[in-house]
């Protein structure tokens, strides 16, 4: 029996041997992984041991700067969402927004509920109202009606408007059993055509930041937007996220989604 008190001391030969073997394996493995293997990958060039170690160990490298970037011939959205960017909008912001919103009432209704097939804004997420206002102002989203109205709005004005509409009561989702089951496209999407369910981003299943609340929106509006995404006349969705979906939708699916979401309590 070996001595238990001396087991973890350099005097113990088992201890010495196991430390030596472990260190040896670590050194060999590091040499293999950091120095010997990387050059086997296509596109890799061996640029010295130190560089190889830094790369393999995951030291951040600057992206290659020489590559040219092709810019779009049209305007895309410049809105950047950050977590919590609309939190803490106080009563003052809502009040200012309510005053500014007077110019919106003609189309979007006195309390954000449209009578004119314009989108209802009552209860709409602040991120959505803010983004669309910014996009109208920058020209990423075009509308002969909206553009002249947003020209004079400052960034704070747009945040206030967003806070006001977010504060108004949202039309509830109204889908009585008598209306039948919800359309496939809304609850399951069409997985064979790269279409996720509408409800995966627009509420019902989950909400993705920047995706609008759709329940209660006028059907002609939803349909027009889906068609605009589909044929590429509306391009202010971040990185084509809606164009990719609408592109693969059939006219029937567009109708079904528009009809489903337009349902309102009597």
């Amino acid at each position, binding site marked *: *029996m*070996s*001595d238990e*008190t*001396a087991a973890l001391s350099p005097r113990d030969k*088992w201890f010495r*041997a*196991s430390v030596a*073997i472990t260190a040896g*394996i670590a050194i*060999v*493995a590091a040499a*293999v*992984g950091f120095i*010997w*293997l990387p050059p*086997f*990958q*296509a*596109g*890799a060039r061996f640029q010295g041991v130190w560089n190889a170690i830094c*790369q*393999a160990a*995951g*030291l*951040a*490298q*600057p*992206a290659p700067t020489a*590559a040219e*970037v*092709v*810019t*779009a*011939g049209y305007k*895309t*959205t*410049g809105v*950047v*969402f*950050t977590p919590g960017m609309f939190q803490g909008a106080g009563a003052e912001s809502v009040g200012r927004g309510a005053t500014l919103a007077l110019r919106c009432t003609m189309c979007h209704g006195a309390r954000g509920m449209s009578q004119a097939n314009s989108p209802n804004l009552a209860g709409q997420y602040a991120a959505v109202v803010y983004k669309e206002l910014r996009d109208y102002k920058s020209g990423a989203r075009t509308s002969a009606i909206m553009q002249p109205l947003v020209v004079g709005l400052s960034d704070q004005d747009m945040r206030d408007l967003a806070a006001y509409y977010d504060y108004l009561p949202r039309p509830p989702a109204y889908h009585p059993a008598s209306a039948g089951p919800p359309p496939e496209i809304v609850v399951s*999407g*069409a997985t064979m055509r*790269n*279409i*996720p*369910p509408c*409800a*995966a*981003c627009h509420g019902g*299943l*989950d909400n*993705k930041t920047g995706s609008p609340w759709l329940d209660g929106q006028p059907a002609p509006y939803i349909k027009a937007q889906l068609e605009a995404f589909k044929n590429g006349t509306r391009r202010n969705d*971040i*990185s*084509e*996220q809606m164009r*990719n*979906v609408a*592109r693969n939708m059939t006219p029937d699916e567009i109708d079904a989604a528009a009809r489903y979401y337009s349902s309102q309590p009597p």
Partner: protein
Amino acid sequence: MTGDPPPSSPHDPGAEHALRIERRWASVAVLIVIFLIVMAAVAGVHQATMPQLKLELVDPRTLHVSGEFIESNLGTAVEPDGSVTVRAIGQQYSFVPQCIVVPTDTVVHFRATSGDVVHGFLIDGTNLNTMLIPGFISTATARFSTPIESHMPCHEYCGVGHEGMWGKVKVIDKAAFEKLAADRRRLTCVD
């Protein structure tokens, strides 16, 4: 102090037996470790696994605003050295471009990242398989010898629309690709 330890006699048959067993187990453990290292090395050399060559960072919030991942710069680009670079992003719930087109017999560099959560990037029928992690640029290099049409399912659960998230990859004849590339700087096969 606990006093002198009991002397272990090298002639004690029990101790000698234990020593032999201990030595054998130690050898087995070392052999297993060496086997694993050799296995990883062979897989690495033959590209069965493709660890990231280097770590490149990118701000996932501003992918669509500036840099190489803006929508007009995504797709396949022909490089001066004859290779092609494919830039793509994954987002809830699609890949951009939805259809990637690359030529045969050409070195293809993939550069891809995610705009929101972790997605998977896998080309069916090939050994291309990596993760798209927000904040990091995933790179991979490949060469396709025959024209194929393949699918690219997101293979990392990314949210409730995950099952609807996949893209297409078309490997087309090099001559046909060059014809396509003559008048376009970024190619996709999205119709």
